[in-house]
């Protein structure tokens, strides 16, 4: 069995919001809504630390960490259990997804989700540009929507948009049931937490804090399991992005990865009409 999971290395995260923005583009998320948010743990406002500045008699206790937060794809997902009409369900591969045709818009799932990962289309969703972005059909007014781990990409052997667009390689996607996958190895090796662990929802999203991991070990759009060289510790020889991965989604690219071993850096060709 496959069980998709996400490991987020909070030590690597630089708070650039690339995952939040690429999620919004890839999934055609309406104006005023976010499926994926990068929160600042620290001060009152985004990108502000708590504590005092070290100079001029300050306490020098500045502290800040980023908390990227989206649907945690829980094993014991309360949203799935409360949905009266089976609109929210767990796929065989562990992804929690919504059937927007079934959703009646009762919002019981929003009450159930401890992470506030779900958003509701309170009015007719607006998109910028009007025809929408990305590869996912827009959802209608009156339904609840949320992160799908980019199931449309996963089904094609691609990592979620937030994962391939993370310039800090802080997001690692993979199969938690496969012991040799990077996510399994990182969870084994590093100190990881699940969000609100005490609620018993058993999320398939794990956060690394304390010691920094080497991060996502590939430069491709592809999922680890789709690579020819299955070793997650590969030096990158097989990690050159394929053409079809590229043409599948113009806004996703693996170009910003640091390259080891003398490999030629791969850059996405600029598209006319580009992304903005």
């Amino acid at each position: 069995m496959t069980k998709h999971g996400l490991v987020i290395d909070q030590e690597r995260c630089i708070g650039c919001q690339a995952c939040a923005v690429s999620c919004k583009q890839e999934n055609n998320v309406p104006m005023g809504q976010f499926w994926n948010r990068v929160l600042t743990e620290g001060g009152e406002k985004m990108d502000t630390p708590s504590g005092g500045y070290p100079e001029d008699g300050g306490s020098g206790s500045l502290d800040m960490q980023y908390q990227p937060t989206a649907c945690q794809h829980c094993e014991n997902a309360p949203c799935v259990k409360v949905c009266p009409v089976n609109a929210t369900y767990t796929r065989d591969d562990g992804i929690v997804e919504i059937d927007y045709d079934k959703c009646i818009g009762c919002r019981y799932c929003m009450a159930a989700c401890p992470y506030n990962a779900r958003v509701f289309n309170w009015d007719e969703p607006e998109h910028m540009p009007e025809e929408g972005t990305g590869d996912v059909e827009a959802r209608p007014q009156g339904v609840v929507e949320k992160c799908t781990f980019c199931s449309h990409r996963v089904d094609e052997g691609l990592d979620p948009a937030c994962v391939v667009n993370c310039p800090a390689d802080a997001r690692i996607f993979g199969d938690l049931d496969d012991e040799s996958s990077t996510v399994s190895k990182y969870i084994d090796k590093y100190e990881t937490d699940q969000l609100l662990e005490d609620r018993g929802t058993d999320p398939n999203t794990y956060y690394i804090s304390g010691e920094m991991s080497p991060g996502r070990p590939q430069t491709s759009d592809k999922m680890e399991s789709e690579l020819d060289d299955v070793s997650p510790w590969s030096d990158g020889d097989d990690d050159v992005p394929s053409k079809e991965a590229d043409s599948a989604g113009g806004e996703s690219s693996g170009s910003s990865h640091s390259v080891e071993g003398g490999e030629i850096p791969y850059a996405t060709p600029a598209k006319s009409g580009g992304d903005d």
Partner: protein
Amino acid sequence: MAANTGSSRVAIPSFGGKGKLWIGLLVALMAAGIAAWGYQLTTGLIATGMRNVFSWGLYIMMFVLFVGLSAGGLIISSAPKFFHSHRYEGFARLGVLVSLACIIVAGLLILPDIGRPGRLYQFFTSPDFRSPMVWDFGIVLLYGLLNLWYLWLLTRRDLAARGSSLALGFKDTEAGRDRDRTLMFWTAAVALPTAVALHSVTGWIFATQVGRGDWFSPLVAPVFIAKALVSGLGLLLIVSVLADRYTNFEVDREELTSLGKILGIFLAFHVVYLLAAERLPHAWADHFEFWAIMSNFLIGDSVYFWLWTVVGGAVPLAMLALPPLRKRVSVIFTASVLAVVGTMFEGIRLVFTGYEVANIDSAPGISLGGEYTGITTDIWATAGAYTPTLVEIAVTLGIIAFGAFIVTLGLKYVPIQRVDAELSYATDGGKQDQ
């Protein structure tokens, strides 16, 4: 059996000037409600004060209230029947009528809360039996049908005697009345556990949720039972006093006083005992000094808390407990109103405790999917805030007016009291003595 014709009475033989004014008012409220709902359907739920953090509002708060209100009548009419007593007989039919109206109001209040009402058929085609909402859907439906059946059972022989077509062809015969008494006993035997299930399941909608603060408490279901007893009986007393005043319905003063006393006992159990039982363990565990524990135990944190416990609890309790006061109809009436209002604020408070604090509240927070009307100017919030909009208020009032309309029609078309009430409903086979 023409002899029976004179032994029952309808409360409103015909509508006078005031009656027509009342009907006009209800129709106007219903029309406004329908218009507001139509507006909400075209614009979406953006017309409400609800947003992503605070995603349930007035409709659900009032749903909780009206499920509770539907308890009183059925319990007051079925509990004595179950124990073969004809105590409170004069309230029996009115009680079931009020229960029926309230459960209809509760059910209807869900409709405007639904984002896509057109998809509601999914409840039948694709139900998930793990969902407490599916359980509640089933029990509300069952309870509504039970009330309808019970009201008809209680009155069908009298309807027949009056020649009403609502008797659906049943005849008023001695044998028929005897058989109905047995049926009433069994209906009462089913109604009581159904009422317990209704309030528990409605409580469990909230009590099963790990992500919404105080909702996740095993006490929620018993508290829902208690508040159903308080508010349901309170509403029955309010309606019977009003019906006594404005229609031919007659209240037995002694029974009214006795029910007032029972309301006091329910209030004491609910607002004093259950609340204390809920608060003490947390207050004790969270604080160290004796006075810190005590003040945390006794002093609440929100306006809704005080509106509920003092205005809706302590004050009516005192009114119903003091011997010189508690026999006055005006005192019983006022105490009942306060009890119902208090219960309403308890429901409001429950929803607020679930939504006003976000578990993960780091900046910038949660995208709202719109602005909180008049509170923030951007799409982000780290805490929940809610004020109902005029649209929500109009829709809610419209639905409540529909409930009042049902009660009014019931008073007009259903023989609401027996003139010989004491004699006619002993369920232990006591023969009618005409």
